[in-house]
């Protein structure tokens, strides 16, 4: 059943019938006994993988199994910063591929994901920061990606509410800017990919938790779920903070730590901040949503956990940093705070890779910064699953790198990670 196209015309047409005729954005089928490919995890990455499997590789006998509701993991909890200004070539190419997909994603999916390239600023507060900024901006530019350095005065002009006084504890000494970076609407990304994948024949199955991975010899044959066994010769696990749990079902250990990462929003206020502002040294980042809420975050809670709950001290630190950079925020109010469980690799780069178990693939380790990669990650993972070998864009992000030592250390980029 081809989904009706969305447009202003379809809205007008449906208004005439009081919006009674809209179809479900995706079907809710019962699982079939077996599929060609099973994707475990209905977050943005999993859904994008399914979409590109069907779209680019004509493999549509695919199921996405989600234990809860689509996008209920980090996809629906993140602060939606999208950018591609990463230091190392491998990362820059991957994230840039993703950014290019973002630029036409609404049209591709016929679903407004509200990608808004309003610019991402990274502030420098000391000489060391400035040096690092130079290094990054030069590297990013030589990779053919937009990136520039702003002086304090230029930063002030762009973000008048930012405290650029030289007399604060850590004055703003400059910033890097990626103009093509910005934010997007997280839920819409999950829903848009789900709708797109469903229209191409993918089965999207919510409330279906994978509880076991069945192996025969050195290869997988399917998954045990809360809705019974489902067969598949290829299984792609895209479970973010729970990746290590899934890996252990197949007898694998991943080099991943799961931590809570918190974020919060203010009450909605009239627009005052038009760009994304990030500071590693003062440790906070802020943007303002279309609704008017300030969306704010910082670093992880130091403890390991699978419970999506953080601790108050982190919130206090975030708020202090926000008020340091934006003293007029002090009388605004925090409306809601929450946490997601992020999957952090030792080198702060993802794993998009096959495993020693045949037919079992993992796409994880995106940690605090994988939302921006959603379309690109799905795109390369679909290729990896379909062809049983990585695309050149994700070849470096293999599981073997933790054995060989060919790490892609993006800790600098991930100091404030998003």
């Amino acid at each position, binding site marked *: 059943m081809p989904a009706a196209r969305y447009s202003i015309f379809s809205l*007008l047409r449906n208004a005439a019938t*009081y*919006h009674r005729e809209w179809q479900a954005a*995706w079907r809710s089928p019962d699982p079939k006994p077996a599929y060609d490919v099973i994707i475990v995890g209905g977050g943005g990455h999993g859904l994008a993988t399914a979409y590109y499997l069907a779209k680019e590789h004509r493999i549509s006998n695919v199921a996405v199994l989600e234990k809860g509701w689509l996008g*209920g993991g980090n996809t629906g909890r993140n602060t939606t910063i999208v950018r591609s200004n990463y230091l190392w070539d491998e990362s820059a190419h991957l994230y840039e591929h993703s950014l290019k997909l973002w630029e036409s994603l609404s049209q591709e999916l016929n679903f407004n994901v509200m990608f808004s390239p309003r610019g991402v600023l990274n502030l420098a507060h000391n000489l060391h920061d400035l040096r690092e900024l130079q290094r990054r901006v030069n590297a990013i530019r030589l990779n053919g990606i937009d990136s520039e350095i702003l002086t304090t005065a230029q930063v002030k002009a762009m973000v008048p509410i930012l405290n650029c006084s030289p007399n604060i504890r850590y004055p703003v000494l400059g910033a890097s800017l990626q103009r093509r970076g910005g934010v997007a609407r997280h839920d819409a990304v999950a829903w848009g990919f789900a709708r797109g994948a469903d229209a191409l024949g993918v089965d999207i199955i919510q409330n279906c938790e994978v509880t076991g991975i069945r192996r025969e010899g050195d290869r997988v044959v399917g998954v045990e779920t809360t809705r019974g066994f489902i067969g598949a010769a290829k299984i792609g696990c895209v479970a973010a903070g729970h990746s290590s749990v899934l890996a252990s079902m197949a007898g694998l250990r991943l080099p991943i730590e799961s931590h809570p990462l918190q974020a919060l929003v*203010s009450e909605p206020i009239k627009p005052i901040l038009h760009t994304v502002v990030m500071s590693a040294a003062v440790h906070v980042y802020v943007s303002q949503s279309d609704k008017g809420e300030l969306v704010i975050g910082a670093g992880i809670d130091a403890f390991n956990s699978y419970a999506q709950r953080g601790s108050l001290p982190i919130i206090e630190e975030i708020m202090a940093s926000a008020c340091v950079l934006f003293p*007029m925020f002090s009388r605004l109010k925090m409306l809601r*705070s929450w946490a997601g469980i992020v999957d952090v690799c030792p080198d702060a780069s993802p794993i998009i890779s096959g495993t020693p178990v045949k037919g079992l693939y993992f796409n994880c380790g995106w940690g605090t910064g994988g939302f921006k990669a959603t379309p690109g990650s799905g795109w390369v993972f679909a290729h990896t699953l379909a062809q049983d070998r990585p695309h050149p864009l994700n070849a470096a992000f293999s599981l073997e790198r933790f054995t060989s030592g060919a790490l892609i*250390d993006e800790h600098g980029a991930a100091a404030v990670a998003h």
Partner: protein
Amino acid sequence: MSEQSHRLDAAAAPGRIDRGHPLRFVFNGRGYEGFAGDTLASALIANGVHLVGRSFKYHRPRGIVGSGSEEPNALVQLRTGERTEPNVRATQAELFDGLIASSQNCWPSVGFDLGAINDMASRILPAGFYYKTFMWPPSAWMFYEGLIRRAAGLGRAPDDPDPDRYEKRFAHCDVLVVGAGPAGLAAALAAARAGARVVLCDEQAEMGGQLLAHPRGVGAVIDGRPALDWASAALGELASNKDVTLLPRTTCFGYYDHNALALAERVADHVAKPRQFQPRQRLWKLRARRVVLATGAIERPLVFRDNDRPGIMLAGSAAAYGMRYGAAVGRRVLVFTNNDSAYRAALALFDAGVGIAGIVDLRPAASGKPVEDARARGIEVLAGWALTATDGPSKVRAALAMQLDEAGAGVQGPIRRIECDAIAMSGGWNPAVHLYSQARGKLRYDGAQGIFLPGRTEQALAVAGSCNGAWSLGACLAEGAAAGAAAAEAAGFTAASAPAPAAAEENDSPARLLWVVPSDRPLGEGGKHFVDFQNDVTAADIGLAVREGYKSVEHLKRYTTSGMGTDQGKLGNVHALGILAEVTAAEPGAVGTTTFRPPYTPVGFGTLAGRDVGALADPVRTTAMHGWHVAAGAVFEDVGQWKRPHYYPRPGESLHDAVNREVKAARTGVGILDASTLGKIDIQGPDAAEFLNRIYTNAWTKLEIGRARYGFMCREDGMVFDDGVTTRLAAGHFHMTTTTGGAARVLSWLEEWAQTEWPELRVYMTSVTEQWAVAAIAGPHARALLAKVGTGIDLDAKAFPFMAMREGNVAGIPARVFRISFTGELSYEINVPARYGMALWQALMAAGAEFGITPYGTEAMHVLRAEKGFVIVGQDTDGTVTPIDLGMDWIVSKAKDFIGKRSLSRADTARGDRKQLVGLLTDDPRVVLPEGGQIVAELKPEPPMAMLGHVTSSYFSANLDRSIALALVRNGRQRIGAALHVPLADRNIRVKVVEPKFIDPEGRRQDG
């Protein structure tokens, strides 16, 4: 100034206000008067003002709905100028003289708002419309988004920094009671009488909860006396108990693991501005042995057509305005209910002199005492009827009523128009389970009442009163007293078995649950049934969301935005669930609830930030010699928390002039550096040497006492983590130095290994960074200078060789003198107890005058070490560099194990063509490479270009009279002698690769 047109007669409705104390205030530019004890909302109502704001999406006129923290509509911009605050609930803003407030989200005025055009277009703007459009042309989204952004948002942020201050307090107690209504008071009394340390908090200014405002409380009798007298006696008893802390105006907003609770106290929000030194708000971080949640219940509206006009409000709130504030919400109030509680509201209002236009009850067979009482007063009761529409442009002026069919699915019969100027509605009461749910308590659905009740919890807490579904006063008091006593017992006290305070039990007839009240038109076709008032979510929107597949509660919430406003769905959430369940033919208990997240009500950024802002954002660390540097005119650099002299300009000197002078002095005369900021860790224990042997890449067990050694620490992955010189003071005693920025990190690292990996090693670490002040003197005259100030040490190069430490008295000050060098010159690092740092520095400066002693800063230090090719960890390394990459194979022991050793032999880490440290010389010796410049072998006209590495350090070296640089370059050692390029945004610089040692490669100068 207008008179208070809707203030009730003092005799009939005295309320808790002080009529002898009038207060003036301004709303939307107009002056009004209210009384002490009023909230802004009650004062507005007393003046007949209901239209206070506009809704978020459709900009519909909205009035006051509630009377407390549940309020979705009456949000105002409070105060002006630097103290202005957006989105303040008028229902919680206490009135003070001179208060100024205005409506938000409307232009040009709340009465005539252009944004209301959205309401006219609402037919094409259903839930989630924005996901379906604004996609063409692709570049236009930013344009549409600009319009959307301008229309969205509520109040305005201040333009200026906050002039007020905020404080934080940590506290512990045996029993925290949240909510000071009858259940909370009874709990606090019982716990306090058992001897427990009790904290009782309530978000309202006055404690007493529903006793102050609810028809069931105000007129009730407890233990034989008026309820309010009982409450004031209870509060008096609690106030006089030194183990009890009463916190009015304090919201418990967060319930974290292990009974860690967060409370926000509004210390001075009820006055125009705080007194000098008084905080505006205070954050309490409380750890409670036991918690009693007595957070009460929140009335819920009825979802009927056009239920959002100003003047339509919760029945309990309408009663509260009458009874607590002596303000009439109207002169002809129509009551619309599905339960008995609204009858009590109607009776109370009637008795206070408010006209009641009638009671419309969804229940066909309304009966029982409240119903009889109403009829006895001549109030018309329309049982089995429903309101099907309302009328009135900016305030309700009439409602239409029809008879319900048996199933409650439709209406029938003639339409009756009932004139009224307010509608008091009640859809029942939801237990305020937010904190309970934050505490990970499981909720259970009570189908008969259509409410979620506390179920099971793992935390040390109890729930009492209407938060627990107890509706009569007697039950609330009994539950409270029992919970308080049990909490005290659980915290280790013995509670005397005293009878609970007693009040009459009243049993209500069951309510009639209708999630949506039908009208004579199909849902969504003409008129709107609002579920979430603030975000303009209607019952039809929920139907649409379900049709489109957004039927998980979380999808529903996100797709429609129901429950995402500043009230976080306190009124509408359960209705949204009920409607969802109805549409999907499920049980509300089965569709589940969305997660309640902190905070319960919004909390100020400033409150959470506390004092850690402005100058106190991060501690400033200065050395013992800081005052001297300031007096000498040093320019400072932030290194971590430290302020370090960057350079010491003389009048007229630029950075480069000063640095050139400073580096020359250190190589020709003597320079002096304040090196106090280096991390210093005192390491002791019989296994200290073995510990260091495992931590550092080189060997330590055989180091002689009194000798020092340079070492690298690696992480498990073999990458350099920190470096420094460590000295053996005794067999089991070492003095370690670390980088300035790495000090804390290194100490944690050592502790982690000592505590978790090698607990068998007897070794103990103490940070002594702050205990020692360090002056480093470097240059050919360093030894002569030391000799002149006197040391008591044999300074002869043989007696006191390089990499040795001697104790002595330098200029009469007990000192440890280390002969180590970060400049390559003859150099001594003199460590003295920090309190003597200044004296030492002054003595050295005085004695050094004859040698032309020159203080130098971090910039000169960097140049001097770069001339020698010494790396700075964190600048010439970045976590991806091994000691071997730095050309320092000699420091990596082959014989013993150390952290990171195995990683060094991994395939990629052992490769010969990794990025390696090299020197770079520009073709033009005057050109200084920018640090961070990327290096390529092959220049292309345009990016992309393949990069080989980057410039890590780069300076002009006055000693060499040319520029020098260090760089990490792929396969760099093999490229020595080759030419490479550094392409910049505006030019390209050609460089030659050289050995990373520019001066004295043989290391002769360090002996002087």
